[in-house]
């Protein structure tokens, strides 16, 4: 067991993947000498060389497009998009090519490309540095979409993503990069499959369904609720596409109430998909409608307002209250 930050866990996970498989490459803006603006790739270029850890020209479409080409040639590129808001120049390559080429080839082509995206707000940044664009990608068939929330998952999930023969969009909660926890790097027995969620806190009254940066917020809300005599179960979805439906439904059937929490706008977001599926599959178990807590239907605001935009403990507990009020 080693105590490490989420960013260090990702770093260690990538290091392990690179040691295990010489075809694994790291590419992106400033990932080499600088080690990335969040230092997630720190030291990898020094240890694996410039051929395997590539500082690319400043062009996201180029990063993903050439990663596809490298994958066609048998490499396993792990691409870093510097911030969530800068993935969009690459949207064409991701949506029209990365997601669809394998099917177009009738399975002859596999594209084991990982696209790492630091996501979410709460760090006082300027425009385009605090977004939660997961729904654009969960809506695109052909992509696996995952989100890690803690160091241990970061360590195991990044390695699973790299080993996956499918393209994986890998969300990293940037404001949790510096949170520390124990990670067991000696053994893989504890790894949960990347496409499975986890109950991170058991409870009986309400299920909080969440992912990435909001997991911690939901755990804090559950703690606070317990002091008021309410038992909240927190499910870390981890995989956003596919959703771990059996896990979600089992939890909601038990508690009878579900609140989805994410930073992305509520409107047309991941929560809508969860609410619809829960309604379809757990209708007779529900004590209240599925409620959603998330960002407003506005662009991410200037940082002085982000505390109002981001779901916090109060907003989560307010939704829990409403769920009980039915």
């Amino acid at each position, binding site marked *: 067991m080693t105590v490490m930050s989420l960013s260090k866990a990702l770093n260690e996970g990538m290091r392990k993947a690179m040691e295990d498989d010489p075809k694994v490459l790291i590419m992106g803006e400033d990932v080499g*000498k600088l080690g990335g603006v969040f230092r997630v790739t720190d030291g990898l270029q020094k240890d694996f060389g410039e051929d395997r850890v590539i500082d*690319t*020209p*400043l062009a996201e479409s180029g990063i993903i497009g050439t990663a596809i080409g490298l994958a066609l040639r048998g490499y396993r590129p792990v691409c870093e998009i510097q911030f969530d808001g800068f993935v969009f120049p690459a949207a064409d390559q991701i949506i029209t090519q990365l997601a669809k080429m394998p099917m177009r080839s009738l399975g002859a082509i596999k594209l084991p490309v990982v696209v790492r995206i630091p996501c979410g707000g709460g760090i006082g940044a*300027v425009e385009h540095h605090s977004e939660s664009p997961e729904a654009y990608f969960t809506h695109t068939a052909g992509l696996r979409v995952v989100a890690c929330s803690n160091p241990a998952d970061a360590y195991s999930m990044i390695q699973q993503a790299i080993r996956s023969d499918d393209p994986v969009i890998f969300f990293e909660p940037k404001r949790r990069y510096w949170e520390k926890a124990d990670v067991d790097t000696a053994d893989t027995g504890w790894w949960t499959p990347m496409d499975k969620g986890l109950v991170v806190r058991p409870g009986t009254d309400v299920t909080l369904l969440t992912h990435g940066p909001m997991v911690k917020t939901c755990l804090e809300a559950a703690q606070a609720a317990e002091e008021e005599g309410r038992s909240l179960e927190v499910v870390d979805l981890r995989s956003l596409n596919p959703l771990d439906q059996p896990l979600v439904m089992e939890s909601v059937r038990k508690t009878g109430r579900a609140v989805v929490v994410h930073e992305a706008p509520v409107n047309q977001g991941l929560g809508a998909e969860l609410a619809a599926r829960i309604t379809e599959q757990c209708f007779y178990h529900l004590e209240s409608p599925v409620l959603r807590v998330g960002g407003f239907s*506005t662009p991410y605001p200037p940082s002085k307002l982000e505390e109002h935009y981001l779901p916090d403990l109060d907003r989560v507990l307010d939704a829990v209250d409403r769920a009980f009020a039915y």
Partner: protein
Amino acid sequence: MTIDASRGAEAPPELVQLLTPEGERVQHPDYDIDLTPEEVRSLYRDLVLVRRVDLEAVALQRQGELGIWASLLGQEAAQIGSGRALTDSDMAFPTYREHGVAWCRDVDPIKLLGLFRGVNNGGWDPKEHNFHLYTIVIGSQTLHAVGYAMGIQRDDAAAATIVYFGDGATSQGDVNESFIWASVFNAPIVFFCQNNQWAISEPLERQTRIPLYRRASGFGFPGVRVDGNDVFACLAVTRQALKNAREGQGPTLIEAFTYRMGAHTTTDDPTRYRVASELEAWKLKDPIERVKAYLFKNELADQTFLDGVEAEADQLGADLRRRCLALPDPEPLAIFDHVYAEPHALIDEERAQFAAYLEGFER
């Protein structure tokens, strides 16, 4: 992996310079400029004042008053030279670092701080100053600028557009597409690339194997490299390029060869990726010192003048600080403002819900 480094490097790059780092006036066959003593003093004042605005902003960030700041240190001449070449009716599209150009467009420096303090996403009306909002997504604004120039062309207006971007930005698809559009439509635009040698931690070699200005010829318009630390040369070259654009001769790419003296932004640590000797070498080419030397050598200014500018800078800095601290935080419900130009039912609903939610805390 070996690559032939000489590939694409025909003649050594030429640099337009009118004022040496030592403050000597030199001649150039294609570009010249005739400045009155008053004009030179005025350029000097601009350079000093924008540097002070920048230093004050860096200090404000250090003290937690700004979230982040992108310093223009070292790029004052490129920005003041090109900015002062613009006429009122010309339109400028900046990145996030063009505080000096903003100054030339009469944007009150306090308005630049809004974005970096996090109270808004850009606090001025672009139409009022013919100075567009800062654009953070690298390269996007180059296409907007070309489109704007195409509008000028259709209006038969006596104006041109200038767009600013960095050396890193030249790799973006948008920037290359903007070159194509400008060329095909012969748009009245000046592409002003401040090559400050770095894109965060990546040196120029990560973006190009040929001098950037030479890219222009492949797109079908002229390119010129100018000493970006020489305010006279930047002014002369930009003035000529804008004139050509207004007269229907189409685009020009200007590569202002300069250096980012500071960190990429206040969150960056350049000691991780570049050597101190590089910085020392560029210090000798300081854009302000050479104008000062020129003024002295030619007896165009005395110590009283310099002191006066210094005092003005002190005043400006203190004033900026005071007004920054006084900037009000936006109201929570401002989140819902200006998302749409016309009424939008969902926004109205969410605004009302959130207002009720906030009231719940007051009760």
